[in-house]
């Protein structure tokens, strides 16, 4: 039988009705989970500017947004999943599958194609590619909900499955930019605001953050995602169909991953099965640094966006400061552990 999920009540503290400064900080971080990543980002920006003033030049800032767009978009999906106390290790694999599907559908030269599916209308290709992502997400959700399997194991399995299927269906062949219709690459084109060069993909990413941020805060579905991640038993007893919520989250994650596939084609300029294999881990890193709890039920999308930017800012800032790649990995690793430690501490806060 399950025990009530009550935290320990600090009677003395309640009795005294007094709180120390530390407790006040703890309380504030607890209430606004995006506060700590925002502080980290601000501090990082100041430090990197002091190390190298080129850091704040419009060109460099534009570059940072471009560097962030893929992980940033995928991290939306990862946030939804982690809020339900799940995890999605297959995000990168599904994204690659979905962009390869898109590109192979749209590519015009039948000769260079592996499956006899080429030559589709570009918009249809984009739609089907995104649908492929949704199907993959639905498979994750189905396996987790129907057979009660842990998300970690399911997505570890589908990570291999989608990687393999990508190689089987599309071989290891990169589809080069010139072969791909412009519509698929459109999100990689830029426009200028003053001295800033922004990708359409970045705008799409920000719009998606706004939409999903709104959904999480203002709809019953969003509220139920938090409730299910917070306490699945309580949610079920409160009349929420936890299985339906969890399935729908993986399905919607698939949709977001499919769109990220489209953005990736634009950003990279070609469709390659050899995109960064660390994408999965980077999305988890962004979510965790962004103040979302791996235990579920706690976190914000805005935090994730900040988290994704922190990763890029650290990478970019350290390289501008003349340090090599290894230091970037080191710094991000330390940040992740700090973020989880802070999360554990915050979870003890009472208000």
């Amino acid at each position, binding site marked *: 039988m399950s025990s009530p999920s009550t935290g320990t009540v600090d009677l003395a503290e309640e009795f005294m009705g007094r709180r120390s400064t530390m407790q006040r900080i703890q309380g504030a971080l607890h209430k606004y989970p995006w506060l700590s990543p925002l502080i980290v980002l601000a501090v990082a920006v100041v430090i990197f500017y002091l190390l190298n003033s080129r850091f704040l030049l419009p060109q460099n800032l534009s570059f940072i947004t471009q560097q962030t767009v893929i992980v940033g978009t995928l991290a939306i999906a990862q946030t939804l999943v982690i809020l339900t106390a799940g995890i999605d290790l297959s995000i990168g694999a599904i994204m690659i599958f979905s962009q390869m599907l898109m590109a192979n559908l749209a590519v015009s030269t039948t000769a260079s194609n592996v499956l006899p599916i080429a030559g589709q209308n570009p918009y249809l290709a984009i739609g089907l590619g995104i649908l492929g992502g949704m199907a993959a997400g639905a498979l994750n959700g189905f396996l987790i909900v129907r057979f009660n399997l842990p998300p970690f194991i399911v997505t570890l399995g589908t990570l291999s499955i989608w990687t393999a299927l990508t190689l089987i269906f599309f071989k290891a062949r990169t589809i080069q930019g010139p072969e791909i219709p412009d519509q698929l690459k459109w999100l990689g084109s830029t426009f200028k605001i003053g001295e800033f060069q922004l990708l359409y993909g970045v705008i799409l990413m920000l719009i998606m953050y706004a939409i999903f941020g709104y959904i999480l805060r203002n709809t019953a579905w969003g509220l139920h995602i938090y409730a299910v991640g917070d306490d699945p038993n309580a949610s*079920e007893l409160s009349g929420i169909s936890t299985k339906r919520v969890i399935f729908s989250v993986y399905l919607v994650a698939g949709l977001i991953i499919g769109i990220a596939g489209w953005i990736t084609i634009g950003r990279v300029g070609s469709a390659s099965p050899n995109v960064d294999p660390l994408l999965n881990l980077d999305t988890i890193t962004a979510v965790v640094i962004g103040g979302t709890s791996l235990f579920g039920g706690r976190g914000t999308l805005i935090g994730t966006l900040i988290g994704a930017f922190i990763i890029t800012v650290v990478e970019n800032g350290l390289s501008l400061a003349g340090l090599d790649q290894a230091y970037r990995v080191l710094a991000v690793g330390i940040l992740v552990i700090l973020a989880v430690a802070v999360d554990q501490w915050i979870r003890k806060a009472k208000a």
Partner: protein
Amino acid sequence: MTTQTSTVTPILQGKDLVKTFGRVVGLDGVNIELYPGEVLAVVGDNGAGKSTLIKCFSGAHVPDSGEMFVNGEKVVFHSTHEAREGGVETVFQTLAVAPALDIASNLYLGREVRKPGFMGTIFRTLDKKAMREQSAAQLRNLGISTLQNITQAVETLSGGQRQAVAVARCAAFGSKVIILDEPTAALGVNESARVLKMIQDLRDRGLSIILISHNMPQVFEVADRIHVARLGKRAAVVTPQSHSMNDVVAIMTGAMTVPVEEQQLAPVR
């Protein structure tokens, strides 16, 4: 004392309910009747099947066999949602609140109110303001004054305040029956008294209540009748007037049996 026959239809009734978990028998053919406007206490040793019994009525379990009736009509509840639609609200032993959500969100969890107009229908926007205002009003109605901030996360509340939130949720929506599974288990003396007062108020408002408790003085204070569960069955139904606390404990443990004609299978009218 003789058996009371009643022409009143039970508001909630279970007939020969059986529920097994693999090889563990939770319920072994239980009968139970709750009549309108009464407080029926359900007592019994740990593992006697009290929670299992009420979970059938709450929709958390579907009995293997047996029938359930609400107001004389046969019902089958596949989910807590269906039970709530049927007018049965439950405060579970585990409270079933989401700790990270605020009080208002918890009161409305699973039946959120959307904004009127296209914001609600198309954009599915929740009417947080209305839910907060109504939650606050509900808590005031119940005389719960210790909860000042309706936007406070439930995890920041004391055990008693949480219990109050869980009870308030039931009271807010309960149209017929409210089931409370050990609502005072975690509470201090004052807080227990407040919950008992709340139970009496709800009965005075015409609701019917099932109260599970291990606390005999409390049971004897508020119950109209006492259903004694033992080994997945009903051992007897008595009243605080017909039997003493020691008798009830004896029935619970099997040291005493009560002939059917001495039981109180329906309230005295």
